[in-house]
């Protein structure tokens, strides 16, 4: 949580981010502000553009993808996505990434130690060998890998999935970045390991004061881990909501439908889970008006005309000043019954 008395300079500020693959716009104007030490979740179905946002912020979109609009500021300085050298200096030192699949995220033929050291050496070339080794061991200890000296000499295949993700988190925090982007960091892990990795991220954030953007489809995870949640649908943020009011307070019909489709432990066996009819629209042929309207139970004829307005659902309370504004991009946001 932000302990700063005044609204501090945001660690990451994104305004109107647009990303296109060829002619198809997959991210259509995303706004996002993350303050130091804050944890913000980005959730949505696969294909909604959430992973693209993560890669676009890093400047690491796959070939064919490009940032077509918007402004990104990291710790107060504007990022120029056409300046590769400046991007290389920023990546790893100010903005770093924890990737989806720990099994394929490490080079199989380099030792764990050399892969952590690579991040350190890139940004502190004058560091001595001994200092690098000591720092690598320190980092492995910090992410909860026992016997760091021995583990540093090992190779990825000698690490379990959870241990690999810990090593990757060590790589990501090696240079004390301002922002850590975690793209589905727990999806490939089994449930008990997931909880451990989340706890680790949580303690690191509190210890280092790093801002976290957690990209995931797991709405339960974000509500537990994050201060604030952004719900994405078809390349846009349709609702921004403080996570303590997510369950019971969601205003956008899409968010509500997502929450209702979560399995609840203890529900009688055989009862069908709620689901959202239809499928997300192809980004190359979006419906007019609100993109969710064709699947929405609350849709009215006017929903298919014009961009839906951004409605302020509730002003932040005094206690949470500067952190949480609850908005939804839906003309009926205030009419949809919540809870």
């Amino acid at each position: 949580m932000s302990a700063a008395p005044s609204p501090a300079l945001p660690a990451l500020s994104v305004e109107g981010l647009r990303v296109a693959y060829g002619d198809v716009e997959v991210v259509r104007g995303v706004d996002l502000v993350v303050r130091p030490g804050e944890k913000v979740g980005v959730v949505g179905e696969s294909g909604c553009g959430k992973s693209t946002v993560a890669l676009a912020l890093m400047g690491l979109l796959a070939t064919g993808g490009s940032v077509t609009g918007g402004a990104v500021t990291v710790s107060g300085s504007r990022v120029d996505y056409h300046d590769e050298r400046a991007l290389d200096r920023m990546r790893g030192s100010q903005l770093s990434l924890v990737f989806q699949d720990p099994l394929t995220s490490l080079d199989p033929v380099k030792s764990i130690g050399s892969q952590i050291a690579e991040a350190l050496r890139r940004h502190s070339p004058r560091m001595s060998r001994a200092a690098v080794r000591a720092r690598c061991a320190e980092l492995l200890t910090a992410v909860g890998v026992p016997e760091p000296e021995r583990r540093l000499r090992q190779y990825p295949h000698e690490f379990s999935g959870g241990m690999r993700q810990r090593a990757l988190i060590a790589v990501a925090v090696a240079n004390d970045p301002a922002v850590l982007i975690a793209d589905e960091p727990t999806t490939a892990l089994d449930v008990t390991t997931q909880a451990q990795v989340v706890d680790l991220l949580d303690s690191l954030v509190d210890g280092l004061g790093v801002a976290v953007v957690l990209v995931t489809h797991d709405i339960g995870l974000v509500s537990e881990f994050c201060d604030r949640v952004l719900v994405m649908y078809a390349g846009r943020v349709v609702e921004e909501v403080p996570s303590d009011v997510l369950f019971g307070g969601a205003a956008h019909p899409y968010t509500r439908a997502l929450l209702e489709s979560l399995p609840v432990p203890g529900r009688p066996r055989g009862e069908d889970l709620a689901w959202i009819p239809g499928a997300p629209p192809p980004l190359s042929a979006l419906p007019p008006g609100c993109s969710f309207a064709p699947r929405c139970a609350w849709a009215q004829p006017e929903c298919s005309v014009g961009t839906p307005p951004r409605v302020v659902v509730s002003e932040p309370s005094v206690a949470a000043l500067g952190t949480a504004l609850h908005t939804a991009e839906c003309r009926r946001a205030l009419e949809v019954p919540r809870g």
Partner: protein
Amino acid sequence: MSRPTSSTSAALKRGAGALLGVLATLLLASVVSFVVLRAVPGDPARLIVGPLATPDVLAGVRTQLGLDDPLWLQYLHYLRDFATLQWGYSYSNGADVTAVIAARLPATLELALWAFLFAVVGAVVVATLASYRGGALAGVAKVVSLVGLGTPQFWVALVLVLVLGSSGLGVLPGPSGRLTSFLEPPPHVTGLYTVDGLLAGQPIVFSDALAHLALPAISLALIPGAFLTRLLTANQADVARAPFVTVVRSKGVSRWAAHRRHVLHNALLPSLASAGLVLASLITGSVLVESVFNWPGIGQVLVQGVQRQDFAVVQAFVLLSAVLYVAANTAADAVVALVDPRLRVSTR
């Protein structure tokens, strides 16, 4: 890991298994070479004595060559003689096969090693640039390597001689052996003139030997070089798509450094085994290029041996090739096992 005894025994077991495989392969190769040569029509004894010899003389030579013994005994003798380097007498050369091959092997080896160097260096450079830069360069590299794969060696050799050799631009010597005639070969150490020239401190001999090597080595390197280029380009394209490359970039490593340190490294490992086979094929497959360039290697002896049904030479060559292939393959596997951490038996 923490169990040195079990990992040592695992390494021993693996080594023993590899050795058994090698022996089985060699035995099979020896059977094939033995049977094929005896299935060929024609009587080597008749070839030696000539068409006018009396039956008595013919029978005498047959006995002398051991051709009257039962086949299994002939095979056992053949194996024993090969293992003890008694590769028989080559009547077409008038000398022991061992001596003939020993005299000519260094020339072939030197040619093959330089061709291998050209092929590997060329393939690594072209494939890396093509997969890093992509676009038109990758297209050109693809077309050139496809053409390279489909072009006959002797044709390339002839074109190179005509264009660059003494009858063309005169940049490099044509088909005139290993050294210019007024130069003395360097003192014999390895038999490779370029190496011996350097060892003896004779830069002129080194450069002259290299100039003579250049055209035949390039002709010989073209097909394996094109093959390795295709292989390395495909491997690098695969590795470049792997998520860990994005992770490396996310540390702030530039695209070129990430490609060199991670993509190239990962792409080279699976190519090492193929490189071993390429080396073996270069040593045993230089016959055509050797005859175009008048190169005094084993290729020419082999051609003569086949034409004159000189069993001893051909058998020795076939089995020697099998040994080379198996040795190159085993060596390549051993190198891969050493440099690939996933295959390394942990000794920690």
